[in-house]
């Protein structure tokens, strides 16, 4: 568990605190999405979680280890992996496999063990065929997957993703999101910063930040039902959720705690009843009599 208690933080050259009195807990195996407007301190907050920054006030404790204690640094950085926004600036190896080996090599593991971890991580993200390629020959999505493999090779318990789908084309975005869900299923806790409300499917908790504080904390269904609060923060609500709200306002008796198209489909079709003749008579549309 990562415990953040009364955390304050400000950069050296500014008096204004970037993080103000943050309380939160991230449990093993959770999938937490962190949203909020630009400059609200999201990235600064996740950099606190693996001791890249140390608290100005308050404490951050990872599995019982205080991030301010230098003895704990190595272990904390193994446990909490970090995938930064720009994969170009975090790939350090001259080939894909050397990059993935960077973390384990820092831990001083023997070459045979490093090899094993590298191969396992590359298979996990589906990039094993690219092992010998130079990083600059990869596409944006592939670079992102390589940087995830580099983090996986450290065998982390938590991974923080900083806008992992930024600048990606739709199919790469899909690949990266599927990877995040897969890691979550493997039991790794996910902390996921995003601006795209459609990335939130799968998150079981939502943290909303504004001006250095956490203003909302709850299940996504819970938080998105407070559309007005979200609007005040300049944040959007997923399109499907909005659609369900509108339908409800039109008088349909629908559950509006819905975040994905699949859930919406289930909800709507349960209200309009079963489709009796599925294309049995190709001349007349099957849904006519239910409309």
């Amino acid at each position, binding site marked *: 568990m990562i415990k953040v208690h009364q955390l304050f933080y400000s950069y050296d050259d500014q008096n204004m605190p970037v993080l103000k009195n943050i309380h939160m807990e991230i449990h093993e195996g959770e999938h937490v999405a962190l949203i909020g407007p630009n400059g609200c301190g999201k990235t600064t907050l996740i950099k606190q979680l693996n001791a*890249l920054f140390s608290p100005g006030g308050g404490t951050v404790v990872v599995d019982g280890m205080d991030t301010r204690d230098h003895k704990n640094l190595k272990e904390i950085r193994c446990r909490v992996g970090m995938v930064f926004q720009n994969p170009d600036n975090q790939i350090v190896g001259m080939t894909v496999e*050397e990059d993935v080996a960077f973390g384990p090599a*820092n831990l001083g593991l023997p070459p045979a063990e490093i090899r094993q971890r590298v191969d396992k991580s590359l298979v996990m993200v589906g990039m094993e065929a690219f092992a010998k390629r130079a990083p600059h020959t990869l596409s944006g999505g592939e670079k992102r997957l390589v940087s995830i493999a580099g983090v996986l090779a*450290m065998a982390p318990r938590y991974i923080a993703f900083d806008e992992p789908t930024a600048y990606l084309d739709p199919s790469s975005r899909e690949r990266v999101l599927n990877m995040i869900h897969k890691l979550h299923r493997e039991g790794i806790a996910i902390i996921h910063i995003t601006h795209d409300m459609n990335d939130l499917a799968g998150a079981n908790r939502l943290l909303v930040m504004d001006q250095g504080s956490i203003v909302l904390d709850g299940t996504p269904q819970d938080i998105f039902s407070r559309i007005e609060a979200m609007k005040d923060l300049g944040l959007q609500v997923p399109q499907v959720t909005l659609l369900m709200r509108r339908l409800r306002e039109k008088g349909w008796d629908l559950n509006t705690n819905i975040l994905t198209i699949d859930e919406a489909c289930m909800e709507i079709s349960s209200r309009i009843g079963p489709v009796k003749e599925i294309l049995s008579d190709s001349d007349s549309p099957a849904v006519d009599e239910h409309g």
Partner: protein
Amino acid sequence: MVNLGQFIASDSMICRVDPRIKIVSMVALSILTFTANWLEVYLISLFLMIVMRMAHLKFRQMLSAIKPLVLFAALFFLLHLFFTDGTRLLSVPLLHIQITQEGLYRGAFVAWQFIALVLSGAILTMTTPPSELISGLEKLLYPLKYLGLPTQDIAVMVSMALRFVPTLLEEFDRIRMAQLARGADLHTGKLTQRAKTTALMAVPLMMSAFRRADELAEAMEARGYHRGPRTALRELRIDGQDFAALAWMLIFIALLAISRVYVN
């Protein structure tokens, strides 16, 4: 695309030889090249050709690797051609120029030395992946650690620098395009004007390099980087074929030494 001897993957025996042996051989060959006499010029040339052959390097690839440096070889040749005293072959009194036999030989020799050095360097880099080259250098420099030189940190720095060469080239292109799109004239104009446009390119490139360096440092730290000992994916090990390669190199040096004794 500028090609100064980038690594070309192949399964030749030369590619598989331990980088340390290749580096030491290249240094030895360079020293031999500098002290060569006429017979050795032929022997070393022959040796280089055999090695290129064994490394499956094509003549065309080698040519493109040394092409940018041919100009320098020509310059060395001309310098010696015009400024060496000796038996006069040809003189142009009007221009105070005279060409001597010694100058001709000397020029040809120096140009050969230069090309041979570049070629042996190119063979090394074309048959060795950069990462192996660096870990080889790191191991060879290891004794310097006792003089207080942080050899491992240096190895990491060099590999980062090499890793970011393509990235910064891309960045340079992007900046160039951005300046062109805003109407910058990068190709014509007076010298002062062109110096200014160079600054237009250099300043953003530097800024971006610094920003990248910051992020890179954070990313490295996040993955547990710290100064001091670390391990590697591939440990270098010297085995049978490496000893064979070393033996061949020693035989070649012995051959040169013998030729030197008998020729003089």
